[in-house]
């Protein structure tokens, strides 16, 4: 029996100890009319050899195309050691570290992670992760409502550069708690917030901004953070953590820094894997720590006075506070955080900066090459980091299809979001100059 160790003798002896005649007897408290005889849709079992063959065939159907899509998930080189270590059984098959003495490995890893992510984001404290970047924004907005108590409007204003899916998700998760999400006006030239059209007197509880923005531009986050604070709102900053070896940390935006930073942790050593599992990071200023959702690890001492680690501030959480908890989150994305911690240790700040610079260089080569093609130009003026929006003189979908037929994923179709025929492209450090040039050539052919 797969994964069940019982011999017939074991089963007989165990039933005798219970005083039951058969395993079936053990289900005698379930009303008979509810019982089913058999499942129908689940197929017969496959051996490991058979399922391996099937999965390899399925994987081959998906192939390994040359990918120039970003839009919130980024292909980066992941050092072999990252997942070799993270899938060690002691990390992989451990539970949440409630028994601290038997979980010091996981707990110390999270403490190191909390240190690294607060360093990158320039803030004081971090939790042990949320599910992903999008749901992280929902939690950040709810946290802002709890912490920014003077404001009762529940109004959250979003800069136009925030990932539109994040807004959908935040609305789905937090909408029933009296929060409303509204977009700030966009400057059509830059794609960034239109500072001369900012609303007055709306009394928002929080203002959310993203750097780099969803369409790849760089927002004047200093000015926007200061505006949020002048309006009495919390500033919530969404940042790609990979870029933070180079770009200004959210904790340093504007005169006082953002109050809460959150975002998608996937670029830090987590495979693309069709969208998950990733992890959402969240950091904040020290004074708001008691309003943070999710688990937090603290350093303390044991009976002998030696240092050790434990989950702390658990009175915020659902297993203690129940209906009055800061969030219902229980299981988080622990293993992804383990991987990210190892990734950051291996790369260091210099390595991370090199990943950023190389990605910037590759994207610049791609964008400049594509803009030499008739019918392709930049959608927005201004600098970009490792992703940029392009405007096409014709529908995007057929062009992307033509590239896909050549096993090149030419970018994310931005048409719906931009309201014009547009495309979002990204070339990370994983691409060679030859890869980039192949992409440019494929576009040139498809556009000709």
């Amino acid at each position, binding site marked *: 029996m797969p994964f069940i160790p019982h011999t017939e003798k*074991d089963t007989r002896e165990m039933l005798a100890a219970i005083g039951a005649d058969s395993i079936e007897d053990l289900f005698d408290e379930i009303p008979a009319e509810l019982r089913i005889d058999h499942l129908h849709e689940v197929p017969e079992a496959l051996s490991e050899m058979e399922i391996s063959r099937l999965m390899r065939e399925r994987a081959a159907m998906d192939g390994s195309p040359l990918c120039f899509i970003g839009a919130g998930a980024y292909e980066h080189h992941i050092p072999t050691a990252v997942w070799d270590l993270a899938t060690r059984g002691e990390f992989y098959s451990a539970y949440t570290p409630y028994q601290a003495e*038997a979980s010091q490995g996981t707990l*110390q890893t999270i403490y190191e992670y909390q240190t690294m992510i607060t360093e990158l984001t320039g803030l004081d404290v971090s939790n042990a992760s949320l599910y992903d970047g999008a749901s992280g924004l929902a939690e950040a907005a709810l946290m802002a409502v709890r912490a920014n108590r003077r404001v009762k409007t529940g109004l959250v204003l979003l800069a136009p550069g925030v990932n539109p899916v994040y807004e959908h998700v935040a609305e789905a998760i937090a909408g029933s708690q009296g929060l409303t999400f509204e977009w700030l006006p966009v400057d059509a030239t830059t794609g960034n917030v239109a500072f001369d059209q900012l609303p007055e007197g709306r009394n928002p509880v929080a203002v959310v901004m993203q750097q780099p923005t969803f369409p790849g531009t760089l927002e004047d986050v200093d000015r926007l953070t200061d505006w949020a604070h002048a309006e009495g709102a919390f500033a919530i900053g969404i940042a790609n953590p990979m870029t933070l070896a180079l770009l200004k940390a959210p904790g340093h935006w504007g005169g006082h820094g953002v109050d809460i930073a959150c975002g998608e942790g996937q670029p830090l050593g987590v495979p693309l*894997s069709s969208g998950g599992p990733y992890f959402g990071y969240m950091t904040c200023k020290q004074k708001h720590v008691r309003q943070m959702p999710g688990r937090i690890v603290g350093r303390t001492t044991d009976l*002998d006075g030696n240092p050790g680690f434990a989950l702390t501030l658990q009175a915020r959480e659902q297993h203690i506070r*129940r209906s009055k908890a800061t969030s219902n989150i229980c299981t988080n994305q622990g293993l992804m955080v383990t991987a990210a911690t190892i990734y950051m240790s291996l790369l260091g700040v210099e390595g991370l900066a090199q990943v950023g610079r190389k990605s910037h260089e590759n994207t610049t080569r791609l964008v400049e090459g594509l803009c030499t093609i008739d019918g392709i130009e930049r959608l927005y003026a201004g600098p970009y980091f490792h992703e940029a929006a392009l405007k096409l003189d014709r529908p995007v979908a057929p062009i992307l299809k033509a590239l896909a037929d050549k096993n090149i994923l030419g970018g994310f179709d931005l048409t719906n979001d931009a309201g014009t025929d547009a495309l979002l492209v990204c070339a990370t450090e994983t691409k060679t100059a030859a890869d980039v040039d192949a992409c440019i050539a494929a576009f040139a052919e498809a556009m000709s």
Partner: protein
Amino acid sequence: MSELIFEKSRGGRRAFAQAPVESGSLSIPEKFLRDDKPRLPEASELQTVRHYTRLSQKNFSIDTQFYPLGSCTMKYNPRACNALALLPEFAGRHPLGPVSHGQGFLTCMYELQEMLKDVTGMKGVSLTPMAGAQGELAGVAMIKAFHDSRGDTERTEIICPDAAHGTNPATATMCGCVVKEIPTLADGDVDMEALKAVLGPKTAGIMLTNPSTLGVFERHIKLIADMVHDAGGLLYYDGANLNAILGKVRPGDMDFDVIHMNLHKTFSTPHGGGGPGSGAVGVNKRLLPFMPIPVVKKREVKGETIYDWAAEDDIPQSIGRLSGFMGNSGVLLRAYVYMRMLGRDGMERVAEYATLNANYLMARLRDAGFELAFPERRASHEFIVTLKHEAKEFHLTAMDVAKALLDKNFHAPTTYFPLLVPECLLIEPTETESKETLDNFVAAMIEIARAAREDGVDYKEAPYKMPVRRLDDVKAARELDLRHSPD
């Protein structure tokens, strides 16, 4: 504790093989760049590998210890599930890649949806929720959306038994609902009189776990379902304990309207030291229009089967998106491989042997003198021992036993949950443990109690053999130290 990775850092040291070769300058204006340098570790590759290998060795895990943690289903996580989910094409697939480059992945997801419908008796499955608690949120949001769609907007009360997981009431609050808690009777079943008293025109629904967190099957479930439905409410099934009934009885047949499954419990994806999980939801017919998106659909194009996303256009009344893409896809792949390896018969064996192990362990502990919280009942896949007498007579608490077990190389059962049983241990052995392991665990429990009773051994300072002694939780919360600072 081990030295922190930061304390091993030396300026200028790096794992040089792991970054791309140096490239040109950055054409980004100064005002966007940071002028400080974040302090990440500066260590060699070997130092990093050795550091995290050593840290891993300070953990208990399923791969190294028996882990009878009640309500958590710590069963063996087959290695093939991990290896096959991480095949390069799956691991490297961009979530926004076209379906032309995703038919393999989408086929697996579609088939997973179908298999989960079969084992739960539900009419539709959405795989997007990323953990049990998010599945709960999706479920309660669907219940609310259902009532709202009928103009029934006054239904804001969610009923939870007092034995419920903390996530149930926390979820109800997140969905803007009011929690009505009802008590449990001495035999472990729901107090029907109390239920009757709270049902009314404000009832949105009830959240139940069955078998409950008390380790027993709720025998009046049909009556409860009828009462709640008659009052206009819907039934939510918390799938935390689905392992106990796989292939034996289905939430859909018990008349539940919406359920979540913890794939990281029942379908053996790893807990990973706290996550990731996966909280797929199943719905009956009337909640189909409200499922969270995206789900995977199948369509025929010129005689060819194409798997594709069903999203806003297909499910316009959906409660919406709960994740940036489609949830914890890699976890879903692991669950898919697990289900295919077990097959139809293997699914049923899960419940059978999980239940056999729990009832055997319960009988052995009862015979050894431990008091059961519900001695007249069958165990489901878990059961509760209460140490209220041991605590009173010789100061042996549930916490003491938990810590003493660590020294005997067993992970502790769940302690002090459910809240209504004093000094309780909630014990769930799972089907993947052998009789020898269970016998060794019983021997350890007997010895711990005997030493306390006869030799006056005091476990207040246990454990002794772990990497650290008992930790000061009060200090951790009062003198917050949540990150390393070099000074």
